[in-house]
């Protein structure tokens, strides 16, 4: 009964519940499998994959901030072949996998998307467009609507699975980005990625992160994420998977109200490894408390 309240269907994703770990905050699941049955999850957004293996940035890669954290992992990953092995390991769990695709050129994105979309348990792609476009002087793919439109179109043309574009919040107008990827044929949107931030070390007079800047995540960014999901919900028709500072079922409900059809949990997995199953467990009661018989009825509720 309670379980039925949470089932959600999105393009390519038959979710038994609308809660999943966010990309880069869950590795490929192995570490969390020591804490709980991954089969409880609605889906899993695995770590970003690039064509070749990547070392990522130098240490330090992490810094804490008020109610948040900065990371500059730099897309460390074992490359397409390595990630395929991880995906094979994940086949033991009856959970749809969302593969997170990154790249430094349009061509790299397209090649990786095509190949990874052929993996059996990959149910959908999430395209992380918060990467610098090396051919365009470093501006992110996710900061220029035309670039994002073109990228979406090319990826859609080759992908065997539905494509979700992951929006960067570091833009003047998030709705322009959302409309661009919708026009490009995206099946859905995931949002938000991290805000660009920086901490300086008073002792050394340098950035705490070896990379200089890093991505700000955690509760601190939740109000920005909720605002952007709210705006994008009004601007497009494709579904949104919302994230940014979610740590409780209440936070998740706030994102549903704003317009997210499902939610992802990032940083909170580090603070509380049981965060996802606890949110899944808490949602039915919470929904009932606020008068909803199904999570779908809460989606976009703030837009009445």
């Amino acid at each position, binding site marked *: 009964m309670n379980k039925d309240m949470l089932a959600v269907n999105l393009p390519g994703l038959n979710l038994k519940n609308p809660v999943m770990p966010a990309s880069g905050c869950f590795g490929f699941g192995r570490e969390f499998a020591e804490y709980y049955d991954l089969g409880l999850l609605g889906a899993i957004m695995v770590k970003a994959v690039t064509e070749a293996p990547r070392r990522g940035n130098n240490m330090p890669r992490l810094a804490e901030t008020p109610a948040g954290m900065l990371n500059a992992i730099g897309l460390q990953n074992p490359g397409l072949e390595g990630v395929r092995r991880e995906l094979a390991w994940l086949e033991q769990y009856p959970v749809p996998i969302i593969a997170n695709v990154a790249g430094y050129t349009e061509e790299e994105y397209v090649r990786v998307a095509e190949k990874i979309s052929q993996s059996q348990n990959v149910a959908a792609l999430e395209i992380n467009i918060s990467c610098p476009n090396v051919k365009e002087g470093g501006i992110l793919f996710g900061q220029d609507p035309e670039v994002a439109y073109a990228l979406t179109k090319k990826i859609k043309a080759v992908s065997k699975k539905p494509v979700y574009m992951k929006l960067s919040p570091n833009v003047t107008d998030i709705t322009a980005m959302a409309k661009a990827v919708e026009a490009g044929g995206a099946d859905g949107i995931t949002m938000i990625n991290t805000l660009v931030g920086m901490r300086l070390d008073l002792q050394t007079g340098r950035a705490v992160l070896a990379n200089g800047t890093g991505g700000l995540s955690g509760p601190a960014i939740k109000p920005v994420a909720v605002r952007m999901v709210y705006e994008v919900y009004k601007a497009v028709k494709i579904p949104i998977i919302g994230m940014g500072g979610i740590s409780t079922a209440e936070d998740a409900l706030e994102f549903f109200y704003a317009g997210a059809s499902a939610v992802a949990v990032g940083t909170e997995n*580090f603070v509380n490894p049981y965060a996802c199953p606890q949110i899944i467990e808490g949602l039915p009661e919470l929904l009932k408390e606020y008068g909803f018989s199904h999570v779908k009825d809460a989606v976009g509720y703030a837009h009445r």
Partner: protein
Amino acid sequence: MKMKILTNESIAKKVFRMKLSAEEVDFKTLSPGTFLNIRVGKGMEPLLRRPISIFDADEKEKTLTIIYKVLGRGTELMSFLKEGEHLDVLGPLGTGFPVQDESRKVLLAGGGVGVPPLYELGKRLRENGVEIVTVLGFRDEASVFCQKDFLKLGKVLIATEDGSVGVEGYVTDAIREMGEDFDTLYACGPRAMLRSLDEAYQDKKKGYLSFEERMACGIGACYGCMTETKDGLKRVCKDGPVFRLGEVVYE
């Protein structure tokens, strides 16, 4: 899991010893050199857990003791906690020191907050009949702690940067002074100290070094705490914090 604070007392300048009731911990599999990842506040700030090594594991009492230095907000808030309160703890985490040691005589070398994990290790080695010498490095006299604990295990040499107690200089200086008559080296401390030990002994001795790195998850999922090794990047929190002498590659 929740652990009840049994005691939390100052033992040196800005250094505290905290004993925790650890009913749910499996002491059988607990390895020295592993750590607890502790949620310090009640709220969203400080957000991340703080990794603190296990200093002493008492299987009979079912208690774990940790020793921590107040460096920033997290450890400061820890120092305010009172007995009877509960801590939200994950762990023991990580890959610790091996204790099946065939050595006749080992050297434990600890610097500053690197001292604590060596004690549980020393206890185990001692139980296995190994002879132990300990060298501990601190900034100054007021910062010295745990000397007495290690004296229970064998000979102890102290080094202080200002020479106010023991040898003047670093742990490495004290080891040179003492002579290098040991089979295996176990060390924990700042990266610079571990590096000079590594460079000095990797061709001569067996040994294990325990590293520190800033952490977010502490369980190997975020890839925030890597160190370069001869076999590629490894996670300090999960593949470490203990690595073999000669394994880590320095930048």
